[in-house]
């Protein structure tokens, strides 16, 4: 059981900044995210794109913003459960919560802050009529353990970075890698595209374009895929394989959070914006893009503000009746949980002769 003060669901910019604000109040945070890395949409969808409305940054890349936020909160030693989706929540008699992920990891905290953005990212599933029958029976939408594919025949579909990168990686693991895409052009990092070209020339990747997987073959387990090749005269062919991995990106879904008894409006969680961004369940807060209230704007900078106010309310729940006044970091410095201290240099007091 992982124990913490504030359990944050979602490791995007809002969740990461919460770590800092909570740390100033001596509250410890742990973050859960369905993605394997921190940063949320900033890392998953647009790490190389600039953002122009982060105060004091005329321009910052989304990926760099994530790095800076991680650095800013580092001394407060946040814990992470990555690659797991928060699935269920249980309120205990003392008012604290147990949140369990899809992999069974349990987290215990007096305060839960949902900073889930648009939801957890789920793979987009291609529209192949019988694909559902073969999920986990040869069809996988995400590669968790590449060793599964050792000496197997693998077909990958998709035209983006993950399709390219996994084709490259698996060409050294699988006995046969076939990459199928609807167009001849791929969109990905230039060196990935060039590497696939090189592996194709060496015969290590079997490239079929422009083409599309339209059916799955097999009884209990997948034995092959049906491919339509869009030549001048469209042709259909069957490829024998052990695994089919469609990689068509991820799309966010509110997911299990929608069943936690929270008031939902417009795919977002209603909160009290006059006070502390608490939901209809005391002790559960929602901050950043995942919440809604009159006048809501889905901006990173609004998420930062919401996180800051939420932490004050969390302090009151965790330390009932305990006195506290807001302190400026410039005045009081920052004492990390790791023993580090940051502080403003002392002014020099010296007479001038």
């Amino acid at each position: 059981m992982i124990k913490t003060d504030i359990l944050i669901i979602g490791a995007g910019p809002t969740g990461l900044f919460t770590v800092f604000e909570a740390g100033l109040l001596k509250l410890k945070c742990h973050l859960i995210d369905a993605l394997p890395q921190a940063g949320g949409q900033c890392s998953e969808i647009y790490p190389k794109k600039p953002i122009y409305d982060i105060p004091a940054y005329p321009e910052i890349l989304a990926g760099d913003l994530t790095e800076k936020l991680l650095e800013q909160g580092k001394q407060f030693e946040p814990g992470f459960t990555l690659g797991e989706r928060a699935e269920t929540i249980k309120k205990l008699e003392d008012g604290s919560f147990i949140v369990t992920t899809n992999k069974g990891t349990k987290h215990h905290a007096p305060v839960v802050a949902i900073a889930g953005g648009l939801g957890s990212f789920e793979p987009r599933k291609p529209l192949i009529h019988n694909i559902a029958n073969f999920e986990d029976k040869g069809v996988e939408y995400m590669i968790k353990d590449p060793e599964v594919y050792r000496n197997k025949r693998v077909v990958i579909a998709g035209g983006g970075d993950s399709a390219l990168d996994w084709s490259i990686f698996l060409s050294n693991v699988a006995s046969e890698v076939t990459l199928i895409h609807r167009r001849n052009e791929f969109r990905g990092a230039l060196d990935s595209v060039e590497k696939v070209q090189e592996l194709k020339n060496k015969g290590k990747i079997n490239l079929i374009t422009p083409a599309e997987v339209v059916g799955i073959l097999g009884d209990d387990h997948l034995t092959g895929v049906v491919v339509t090749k869009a030549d001048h005269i469209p042709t259909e062919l069957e490829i024998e394989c052990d695994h089919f991995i469609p990689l068509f990106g991820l799309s966010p879904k509110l997911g299990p959070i929608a069943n936690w008894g929270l008031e939902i409006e417009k795919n977002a969680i209603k909160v009290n914006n006059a006070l502390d961004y608490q939901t209809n369940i005391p002790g559960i807060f929602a901050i950043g893009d995942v919440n809604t209230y009159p006048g809501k704007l889905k901006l990173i900078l609004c998420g930062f503000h919401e996180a800051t106010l939420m932490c004050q309310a969390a302090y009151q729940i965790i330390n009932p009746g305990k006195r506290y006044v807001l302190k400026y970091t410039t005045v009081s410095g920052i004492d990390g949980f790791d023993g580090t201290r940051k502080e403003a240099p002392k002014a020099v007091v010296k007479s001038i002769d």
Partner: protein
Amino acid sequence: MSQDINITIIDREGVSHEIEAPTDMAMNLMEVVRSYELAPEGTIGVCGGMAMCASCQCYVLSDNELPEMQDEEEAMLAEAFYVKDNSRLGCQIQMTPEMEGLKVELAPES
């Protein structure tokens, strides 16, 4: 004074909406759909309008001359589902006077 234009949007339930869109606010079709709430929040414009998610895919039904498709949009549509010959990403269609009379149907959510 810039004029609003009249466009028709058929939502995912098949309901047709005749609406007015401003041409001087640098809005694109995806943003117009959101401003009229013709598709639930979170199901359209997920990436914010960078041609990186295809949640604003629509089928163009009128014969307005549309802005030429850029590489990013073409690549995204090559990975999207329910794509037809007249598919475009709404976020790549700016509201300009030339779009007067535009008629589109939103593609299914995927």
